[in-house]
């Protein structure tokens, strides 16, 4: 029962992100704790790298503020995950999922590097919306249920509001609503 639900979610996430190439695919038997740490570290680093590209290319104030926030927040998460993994004695492992994330990111990065101006801003923000949607779905539907260690599970549950807020923030930039960015 659980396996079926889990695979269905993986397919949904995969389909939902195919347009921008940021795919999150899952093995049928679920990630182990070392693989979960590897997936989270990979996902974090990818968004840090996207943010750095945006900061080097975009002149849009809202896009730059969002990108700066992604770099700062995901760096904090990265530090926290590394600290927790060390404490728990869990060594990050690559998996089909983390490898898939990295290969998808290579495609996105290539495109980000080619685009300029408004085209760049639009692609970057559209991708951030899809990326954070994929991550929140994956954390809720796969990573949290799969985590065996209680502290790791709690850390994932604690990180979920961050991804959701980033998703909301990305959507507000995407829609051009200025109210939340006016300060």
């Amino acid at each position, binding site marked *: 029962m659980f396996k079926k639900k889990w695979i269905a979610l993986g397919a949904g996430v995969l389909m939902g992100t195919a347009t921008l190439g940021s795919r999150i695919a899952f093995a049928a038997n679920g990630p182990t704790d070392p693989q979960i740490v590897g997936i989270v570290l990979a996902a974090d680093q990818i968004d840090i790298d996207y943010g750095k590209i945006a900061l080097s290319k975009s002149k849009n104030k809202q896009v730059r503020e969002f990108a700066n*926030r992604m770099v700062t927040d995901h760096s904090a*998460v990265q530090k*926290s995950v590394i600290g927790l993994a060390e404490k728990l004695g869990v060594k990050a492992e690559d998996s089909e999922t983390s490898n898939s994330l990295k290969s998808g990111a290579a495609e996105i990065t290539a495109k980000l590097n080619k685009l300029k101006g408004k085209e760049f801003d639009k692609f970057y923000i559209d991708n951030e919306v899809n990326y954070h949607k994929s991550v929140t779905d994956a954390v809720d539907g796969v990573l949290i249920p799969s985590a065996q260690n209680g502290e790791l599970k709690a850390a994932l549950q*604690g990180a979920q509001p961050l991804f959701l*807020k980033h998703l909301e*923030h990305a959507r*507000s930039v995407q829609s051009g609503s200025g109210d939340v*960015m006016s*300060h």
Partner: protein
Amino acid sequence: MEMKRSKSLLAFVVLVLLGGESVAPGLQADAHKNYVVSIKGFRFVPEKLEVNAGDTITWKNEDIVPHIVTGDKFKSKSLDEGDTWTYTAEQKGDFSYNCRFHPTMKGEVVVH
């Protein structure tokens, strides 16, 4: 004789202590209060806070990422995990604020 003196002294001490206790609440009622707003799970907790003019409000960041308290009348420094910032609510009114870093995080302070 000595015993009587000790008892009297003890009674005096008890009276002073009791007296002190009865005075203390009155003093506290007149004093300004300090309220704490926790920032955790990307929310201000409580989201809405009602205080009296002169009270102080301390925001404490319990998230692992930086937050900031940004309102029209007040603005904190960037708060890292564990950092606090205290504001004295002097002006009466209804003041909404957010975290400029994460603009969908919103809060409200009502000063009576």
